[in-house]
């Protein structure tokens, strides 16, 4: 029980962040009440990107070491990332309807999250098409790395096609934080909470997969 203290901490922390998002922070000019989407939508998108990165890192480790646990980590991370990508896409789309009056208009951010969805979908399609465990792990790792290599080019290419209307909370050319300090506090707190939540989910997922592996080995 003592080892699990951080899970309780996370519960309290996230409750505080939700309360803070609705009660503590001011709203930004031009966005009105929908500013509060920031504290949930952006962390979801952040976790989606982070899990993609972790999946690629574990894929590289797998190819180096050829040990199945790295593949379990990579696949689990990708699966959780896929859920968060869907969440970020849907919530972003609802927000876009309110602000831009259309659910989907191929804004650069919408395009890049869509490509991320495609990559994840392709990754899972590939995994389900191969029977042998080691071969599945190897090919999936190679695909994950190649997809990861492509991402910087997408980041460079996509904004050149369309102008973005997406608000820039942190990522902007001047690398300045244009946020009210109260907003920033809750935003960073929420980002931290989501990352911890991701770590927790990843641990549960990988534990389940390891147990399954052990079972199949015993049979």
């Amino acid at each position: 029980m003592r080892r699990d203290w951080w899970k309780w901490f996370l519960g309290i922390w996230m409750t505080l962040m939700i309360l803070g998002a609705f009660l503590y922070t001011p709203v930004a000019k031009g966005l009105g009440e929908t500013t509060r989407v920031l504290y949930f939508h952006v962390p979801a998108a952040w976790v989606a990107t982070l899990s993609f990165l972790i999946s690629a890192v574990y894929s590289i480790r797998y190819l180096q070491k050829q040990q199945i646990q790295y593949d379990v980590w990579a696949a689990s991370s990708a699966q959780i990332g896929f859920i968060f990508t869907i969440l970020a896409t849907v919530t972003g789309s609802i927000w876009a309807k309110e602000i831009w009056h259309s659910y989907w208009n191929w804004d650069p951010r919408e395009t890049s999250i869509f490509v991320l969805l495609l990559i994840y979908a392709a990754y899972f399609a590939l995994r389900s098409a191969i029977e042998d465990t080691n071969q599945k792990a190897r090919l999936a790792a190679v695909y994950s790395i190649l997809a990861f290599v492509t991402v910087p080019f997408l980041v460079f290419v996509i904004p050149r096609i369309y102008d973005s209307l997406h608000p820039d909370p942190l990522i902007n050319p001047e690398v300045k934080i244009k946020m009210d300090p109260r907003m920033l506090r809750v935003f960073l707190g929420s980002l931290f909470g989501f990352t911890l939540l991701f770590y927790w989910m990843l641990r549960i997922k990988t534990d389940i997969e390891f147990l399954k592996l052990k079972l199949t080995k015993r049979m």
Partner: protein
Amino acid sequence: MNPRKYGLEESVWTLLVKSNIIFQKDFHLEFRTRYAINAIILFAVISLTAVSFSVGPIQLEPPIQSAMLWVIIFFSAMSGLSHIFVREEEQQTSDTLRLVAPPTAIFLGKWGFNVVLLFSLEIIIIPLYIALLNVEVQGMSAFLLIIVLGSVGLASIGTIMAAIVAQASTRGALFAVLSFPLSIPVLRSAIQGTWTAIQGGGVAQCLADIQLLFSFTVVILTSSILLFEFIWRK
């Protein structure tokens, strides 16, 4: 071991010779059966006819013209490029191939074949395209340069994805599904560049697109060569 005999230049040279042998082998095999080349060219001609037929007498704008051209090239590539590795698995020749040649040589040879396949497709399809859709290309040199670079990029992605797909059970659909996300940078900058070239832009105007196509192809090729060993090894 004589270090000079196994020096870098020597090994690169032997690698190229071996790649060339693989290329020759595939080339002769292909031209005996003509499976891939028939499939890919017929597919391209049919999609080109479909586009031209559905557009009818309407004159398309340059952005749509360049987008249509790349859509045709992309889907034709998806229909034929996977054959190069799938054939080795279907005819059960891959194990012999593993014994006789190093992985990098195999990859380079197959890559070369796919590039040639895509080029021969374009030699047929592009004049037809220009004639049927009444395209007036004003910047011909930039146009051709972008077509060449874009096809090399598509062929690189197609080759490494073909190697992956050949080991999986559902090959046909999976090939396009895997290749599309990685092809987006190539397609996007090729469409942009072709559009500029059709409207009379020279190489200087398309420079950003050309740089991107070139660097992306180089990056994909290098990482493919590094990773191919893991796909190929059993």
